[in-house]
Every structure is written in C-alpha cells, then in structure tokens.
C-alpha cells in the first residue's frame, strides 16, 4: 500500500535537502556569496562562453607542413653529419623531391660510411624500435631517405603536443583567467577563453608561429637575381616588405645564423633615439656566445632579423654585441611589439596553426541572453505551476513542490560536477519545467481514471502510481537516448543542453514519482481522507 517507513521518509528528505544545499552556492549572487559558511560545499555551475562572453577558437595544423619541415631538417642534418664525418664524406646533388631527401655520394668507397652515419640519424627515439625513415640506395651511390608513415605520425603528434604547450604559455602570458586548451583529434587544438576584452589580440597571438632567426645578409648577391627570387649559391631569399632599398626580397647566408629558441626572455621596450617600439631579447648562455661570435666576426656588415619567414629589419652590426641581449627593431606598434615579445617568450610553434573556427560572444550579448533566458524560465515556471494547481488541486500542489525542488536539484547536481550552463541549457531548464510535470500528469490522470472506475481511494492511488510508472519509465529512457546522442554529437553549447536535459530527466523521475508519492502517502496517513478531489 502507500505506507512509507520512517527511514524511507528520512532518506528521501535528506537526498532532496542535499540537492537543494548543493544548488545554493550557484544561486547566491555577487556580495552575498561572502556570507556562505566555508564548511559547506561551495562548488558552483560554470557559465558557458555564450553566457559570460568569450572566445572559442579551433586551430588546425596541416600535417603536410610538418612533413615539409621535417624534410628540411633532415636535409640540413644530412649535410651536417656528412661534413663532420671523419674523413669527410663528399656529397652532391642533394634535393627534397617527392617527399624524400636524396643525395649522391661522390666517392663510391664511402657509401658504407655514409650509410652508417645515416642510420644513426634516422633511428627513431621510440622504445619500440620503429624506424622513422627508410634508407634506400639506388645506382650504387644515390641515397634516398623516405619518411615512414609511423615516423610522420609521431612527428605530427610531437609537433601538436609542443604546439599545445606553447599556446598555453602564450595565453597564460596574456593574463587571461581560466583558459581551456585541449588537443582535439590528430591535428587540432581547441582554445576557449572566457570574458575577453579584445579577441583580435588573442587571435593575432595564436596565429603567429614566432620562429625568429638571425642570419647574415649576403651583400655580394646580385640585386637583380635577388629581386627575381634567384639566390646565389649558399644563400636563401626571404621577402623583406620594409626594405629601405625598395627591393621586395633580400638574400641571406644559409649557414651561420642563430634561431630564437636560444632565448631566455623577451620584452617590449623603446629605442632611446627614435622612441620607436622595439622588442628586447636576452639569449641563454650558448645563444649569447654564438651571437657574440657572429657579431664579432661581422662588424660593419648587416644581419637580417627574420620572423616567420619574413625579414623584419636588417641592421648593421656597429660593434660586437657581447652581453647576450639584443634589440629587434622593425615596423612595430607598442601593441605588436608586446605581442611578439609574448610569442617569443613562449617559444615558437613547431608548426603553423590556422584558425578554422571561431565563436566569440561579447559580454553584453551574454548578459542579455541570461536576462531574457531567466525571464522566460520564470514566466514558464509560474504559468505551469498555476496550471497544475487549477487542474489537480492538492495533487497539483504536490507536483509543484516536486517541480520546484527538481529545478534546485538540477542546479545542485550540475554544481557538484562543475557542469557548464549554456544558453541552450537554459532552454533545457524551460523544457524540463514543461516535461517534468508530465510524470505527475500521467499519475494524476490515472488516479482520476481509477476513481471513475469505482476503486477506493487507497487502491486508486496505489494503482495510479504503479500503472503510470511503467509509461514514465519507458518514456524517460527514450529521452535519455536522445539526450545521450545530443551529448555525443553536439558541440559546446548543445552539449550543455544535453547535460541539463539528462540530469533533468533523472531528477524529475525521482521528484515527480518518488517524492510526490511520499507526500501523498504522508497526507493520506495523517488525514485519512474520505473523498479525493482530483
């Protein structure tokens, strides 16, 4: 029958009270939060980016870029090891065609020695002993070094790992609070930054690879050849947009440069004479020594400062720079100099990242969404509550108590799991208001029906709850299926909707069936009603 043992009443009440207690910290607004006793749980709901404002940015790397960089590095390494070998191995006709590095050993007696050098160069760092590169010899003296699929995969993986760290350091350096940076899939990174004043600055920072190089200018190069993009032997051509000579390009020596990964610090500063914005950099010990050597040997000659494949400036070396710090001049604003400083401090990205998706919501729109969403939710709740009382009287009141507690419990459960409330999530609340009473409607209608059939009060209540439970159970399972799919396939805000929906389903079954049943049982036991108004 409808008897409820005391322990059941107590445990149900405790469960409900716990849910409500968990919800309170999230509902305290502003100042009042300070008075919340510290021994109580103080987890709160997170607001999604669409409610508090912020940027969601999806970055993507092209694995082909990683492959190209890797081939370049391999070519450089091959040149270096062959030159350093004892005796020196003379090679020629080196090229990077068809995704492989190939070269010729000039002296056929050195082929075995060359192969030995190559093997040390191409063995993977992994413990599995997998090969990162395949070595092939054709026509006796020509080597072809091809990257293996596994080698490329692990290279992309490493590059993305590093890139994620670099992005995290850069965003931390911007001083934003609570950024979320997650690797996604093979070649993507999701960045979510709440409450941002200037999303453009963030994007500029993310989009910059920040690969800094210092290379000597090849001032003997023929200007016409340079302009046409044909480098002299041993040199490379780089674009130079601010070139004072008016040429679009500049030739620099391939060897003997320094890269920006030898930096320990970078900061924005001003050039004392012109008051132009510059970036001050400090090298680590080895970088400083190399920079000193480079400048000592080349006093009076220009060197190029190259950022992401573009020359910023090419100042003359007036005197050796021995202190391990230097100044980068270019066409900077204070802002862009500051950004470059952050990027340099955080390290260069191992691969270029492109923004393939952006969703930014301004704080005003977010606040507007919260306000309108809350109004809709309150109006919906009040209307449904009234409707239930008018239709079911006492039983409507029970359903309403259940519904109200249900809303608190959803908030409480979300706070407990630190779930995120999004705008579709608010819609989920409104929907829950509409649908949570469905269980009570089912039960109450069934009780009405059983009374009509002439069942006594006790029996009608008993049968009403029992028979309705089956349909409630089935209907909610199918809703959970839909909710799960929403969660699995949905993107950010939609996931938030699915979370509210599923928590709402679970807690509404509890409040609408178990909790109201307890209320009804307690009432029947106490009053022993002779008539049932429903």
């Amino acid at each position, binding site marked *: 029958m409808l008897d409820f043992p005391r322990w059941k009443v107590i445990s149900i009440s405790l469960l409900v009270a716990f849910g409500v207690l968990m919800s309170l910290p999230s509902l305290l607004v502003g100042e009042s939060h300070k008075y919340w006793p510290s021994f109580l749980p103080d987890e709160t709901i997170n607001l999604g980016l669409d409610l508090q404002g912020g940027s969601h940015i999806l970055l993507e790397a092209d694995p082909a870029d990683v492959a190209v960089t890797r081939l370049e590095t391999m070519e450089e390494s091959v040149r270096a090891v062959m030159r350093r070998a004892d005796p020196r191995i003379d090679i020629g006709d080196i090229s990077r065609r068809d995704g492989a590095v190939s070269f010729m050993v000039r002296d056929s007696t050195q082929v075995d020695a060359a192969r030995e050098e190559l093997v040390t160069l191409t063995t993977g760092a992994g413990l599995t002993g997998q090969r990162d590169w395949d070595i092939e010899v054709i026509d006796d003296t020509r080597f072809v070094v091809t990257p293996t699929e596994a080698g490329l995969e692990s290279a992309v993986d490493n590059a993305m790992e590093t890139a994620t760290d670099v992005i995290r350091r850069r965003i931390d350096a911007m001083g934003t609070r609570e950024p979320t940076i997650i690797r996604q899939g093979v070649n993507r990174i999701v960045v979510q930054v709440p409450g941002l004043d200037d999303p453009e600055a963030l994007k500029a920072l993310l989009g910059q690879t920040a690969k800094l190089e210092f290379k000597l200018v090849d001032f003997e190069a023929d200007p016409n050849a340079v302009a046409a993009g044909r480098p002299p032997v041993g040199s490379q051509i780089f674009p130079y947009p601010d070139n004072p000579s008016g040429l679009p390009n500049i030739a620099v020596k391939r060897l003997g440069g320094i890269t920006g990964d030898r930096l320990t610090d970078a900061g924005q500063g001003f050039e004392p004479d012109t008051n132009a914005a510059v970036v001050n950099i400090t090298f680590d010990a080895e970088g400083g020594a190399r920079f000193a050597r480079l400048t000592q040997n080349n006093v009076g000659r220009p060197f190029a400062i190259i950022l992401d494949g573009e020359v910023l400036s090419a100042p003359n070396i007036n005197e050796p720079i021995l202190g391990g710090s230097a100044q980068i001049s270019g066409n900077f604003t204070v802002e862009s100099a500051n950004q470059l400083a952050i990027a340099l401090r955080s390290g260069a990205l191992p691969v270029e990242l492109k923004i393939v*998706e952006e969703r930014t919501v301004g704080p005003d729109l977010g606040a507007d969404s919260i306000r309108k969403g809350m109004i809709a939710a309150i109006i919906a709740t009040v209307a449904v509550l009234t409707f239930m009382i008018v239709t079911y009287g006492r039983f409507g009141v029970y359903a309403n108590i259940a519904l109200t507690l249900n809303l608190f419990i959803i908030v409480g459960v979300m706070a407990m799991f630190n779930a995120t409330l999004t705008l579709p999530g608010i819609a989920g609340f409104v929907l829950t208001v509409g649908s949570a009473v469905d269980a009570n409607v089912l039960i109450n209608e069934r009780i009405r029906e059983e009374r009509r059939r002439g069942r006594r009060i006790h029996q009608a209540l008993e049968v009403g709850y*029992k028979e309705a439970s089956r349909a409630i159970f089935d209907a909610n399972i199918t809703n959970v299926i839909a909710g799960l799919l929403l969660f699995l396939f949905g993107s950010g805000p939609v996931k938030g909707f699915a979370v509210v929906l599923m928590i709402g389903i679970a807690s509404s079954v509890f409040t609408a069936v178990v909790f109201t049943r307890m209320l009804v049982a307690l009432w029947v036991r106490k009053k022993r009603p002779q008539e049932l108004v429903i």
Partner: protein
Amino acid sequence: MKLLKLVPDDTNIRFLKWRNIALVISILTMIASIALVATRGLNFGVDFVGGQMIQATFTETETAPITELRSSIGALGYGDATIQRFGADNEVSIRMRLPAEAETRPEAANEMTERIVATIKEGHPDVRIDGVESVSGKVSSELFETGAYSLIFALIAISIYIWIRFEWQFGFGALFALFHDVVLTFGLFALTQLEFNLNIIAALLTIIGYSLNDTIVVYDRIRENLKKYRKMDIVALLDLSLNETLARTVMTSLTMLIALAALVFLGPEVIFGFAVAMFFGVVVGTYSSVYMASPVLIWLKVGPDTFVPAPSPGENAEKVGGPEQVG
C-alpha cells in the same frame, strides 16, 4: 474547490474514423515539406555551410546603417553580405558565405571576418561587436555530417528500444511517427527560411524524444488494453486507448506549449529558431502519436495475440525495474 477538467470524463472521440483522411493529409504535408526543402532549400547557418556571421550593435544610432554596411562590406570583394535586423532596430546580423579561396586555405573564413570587423569598426566607431562566428568549409561539413548522423542514430536507437520493449509493429509505428515529425519540421524551416543551425539539430533530437513520450504513453495503454479486452475490435480498442490517455496528452502538450511559448516570445533571439522548432515539434508530435503511430498498428495487423497473454487475470501489470519503484 472545483478543478479544471480540459477533457470531460465521458469523452469518446472516434479518432480513427478519420485515419485514412489523416493519412492522406499527413502524406501530402510530408510531400509538400520535401518539395519545399528541395525547391526553396534550407537557410543553412554558418555551422553547416561555412562562412561567417557577425552580430553588431550600433550604440549611438536608432537604426543600424544597413545600406551603408552593405556597400562598404561589398567593397571588400567577398560578395554580397546578408544583413538583417537582429532584435532591436540598431542591432544587425551580417552573414557571408565562404570566400572563393576557402577551398585551398582553411583560414580564409576567419581572415574575411577580421577584415569585415575592421571595416565596420573603422566606419562606425560606436559599433559594439556582440558576436562573431566563422567556420571553415571543412569544419562545417564535419558538423553537418555529425548532425545528420546523430538524427539517424537517434531514430534508429529509439525504434530499436520500442521494438524491444513492445513489438516490432510498435517500433515501426514509432519510427513512422518520428519520421513524420522530423520531415514536417524540415518543411517548416524551408517555408519560413529561419536559420537552420546546430541548435535546430538539438531541437530535432529533443522533438524526437518528446514526440515519443506521447507515442509511448498511448502504446503502453494499447498494450494494456490488448491484454485486458481480448475480444474487442482493434479499431475500437485503439480509440478506447486514445480516449483514455487523451486527458494526459492534452495536459502535457499544454504545459510544454506554455513553457515553450515563454521561450518563443520572451527568450533570447539567439535561440528563437530553436524555440519555434520545439513548439512546432510538440504540436506535430502530439498529432502524429494519434494519427500516425496508432493506425500503423492496424495496418500491421496488431491483435490480441501480439503479446503473450498475462498469466492470470488482474495481474496484467508488468513489473518494471528501475530505482523509482519504491514501496
């Protein structure tokens, strides 16, 4: 206290008398919906076709300078922008399809957004950028794919569940009714040209869930009555079941519609399409539970022998598990 009864106790509507007419109407509206989608197409948002959308408020003017924006953005050479009022008179949404170069450069959509934002800010210092969305072609086609998959999976998974809990005829009937609801909602979006975006997929999945609510309640009662009245004619039995559950159907649909009306009329503009889809879905979902899901059972020859008879009279209630079975 006199309580409200929307459906009088002795209601006995012969719903299924009109089942053939209803079927014809339903099939015609479904065909019309498909035709609308085929001819007018859906107004896909940037989520599904890529491109960019900017929401902007012009804080110091009464109305947004739409014509001026159209020409200054048009001058950037990305094609014509779709500029619409969005909420108040001084708020606009600016939509732009993927630029031509997006095919080879995935970052092109975002660069276009940056240039448009810069252009607007330059021409109108009072502008406040409220929202920016840019989606590359690849990402949008992925979103499209997962959206489509989730709808198909939901339809199949739910039908399988009904099939397991009831019988195959019921699973088929539920699938048929859900398909009807989804097709009609697509039709609504083709007709009104409301933006079809990720939120609408969420709405469709929710419609599937809630439309099923109704269907299950009716099916549950049909199963109960099939066991109880083994001699009754199937059409009469279905009508009886529909009438017995009618009060609940009306009540629940009304509470849902009340809640949703609040969202449609008072809720944020951003989820207007979502709220409209849900509202429409509840209406067609209720209809389809009566006129789609039930008649299918007649055509599929559901009868008293579909379910194994209950062991003894009066014990026809099946035990269900679940944590809510307390006491």
